[in-house]
């Protein structure tokens, strides 16, 4: 029997099949997979790569809490959650979530819950590198404030 909870920060590339294999079960008729990838533009600036860093001990603890909460909200769900740290190139997977459940709705909802909570509270930061050679830490709260204006 595979461990139903598979949660970690990793320096290694995230492979979709590993996430799927971590949650797949004959009792589950649905697997929802979410991958976050490095995009080539942000706020109108051309991005060449992203460096992720984390408060490792706390980030893994919060990630486990989120998975525990999702498991309580969506009983029977089997979740895997991996997040990269270090330097990533365009197109690389920064975060991967697989959620398996006997039925599709809880599988989809559990993956959605997990990514939204991760973005809200897990202590991970990213520094974008731009084509002009500069780099900057991303502050999503500043962007939200601008959008609200």
């Amino acid at each position, binding site marked *: 029997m595979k461990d139903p909870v598979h949660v970690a920060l990793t320096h290694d590339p995230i492979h979709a099949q590993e996430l799927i294999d971590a949650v797949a079960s004959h009792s589950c008729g649905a697997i929802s997979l979410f991958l976050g990838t490095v995009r080539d533009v942000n706020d109108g600036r051309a991005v060449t790569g992203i460096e992720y860093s984390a408060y490792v*001990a706390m980030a893994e603890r919060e990630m486990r809490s989120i998975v525990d909460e999702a498991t309580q909200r969506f009983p029977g769900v089997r979740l895997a959650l991996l997040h990269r740290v270090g330097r990533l190139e365009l197109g690389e997977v920064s975060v991967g979530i697989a959620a398996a459940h006997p039925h599709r709705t809880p599988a989809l909802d559990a993956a959605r819950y997990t990514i939204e909570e991760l973005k809200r509270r897990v202590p991970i930061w990213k520094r974008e590198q731009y084509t002009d050679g500069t780099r900057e830490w991303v502050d999503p709260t500043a962007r939200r404030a601008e959008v609200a204006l």
Partner: protein
Amino acid sequence: MTVRVLLFASYADAIGSPELTLDVPDGARVSDVVERLRLLPGADRLPPAPLVAVNAVYAAAGSALAPGDEVAIIPPVAGG
């Protein structure tokens, strides 16, 4: 008593170090540590009430600290 302060990302860049040790009075609270930090050179980029975690758990500004606590000042998170 002393507490260990961890700084990350833009806050570590602002203060010029990812970690420092602070001497604070017994009974000091999270907000006292933040006030002390904001006196350091470069710390004007720290907000008056940043997110803080004590021993890897989010903590309120009024939380009391114990000797040796690990106080992490958490910049706006940007995972995903």
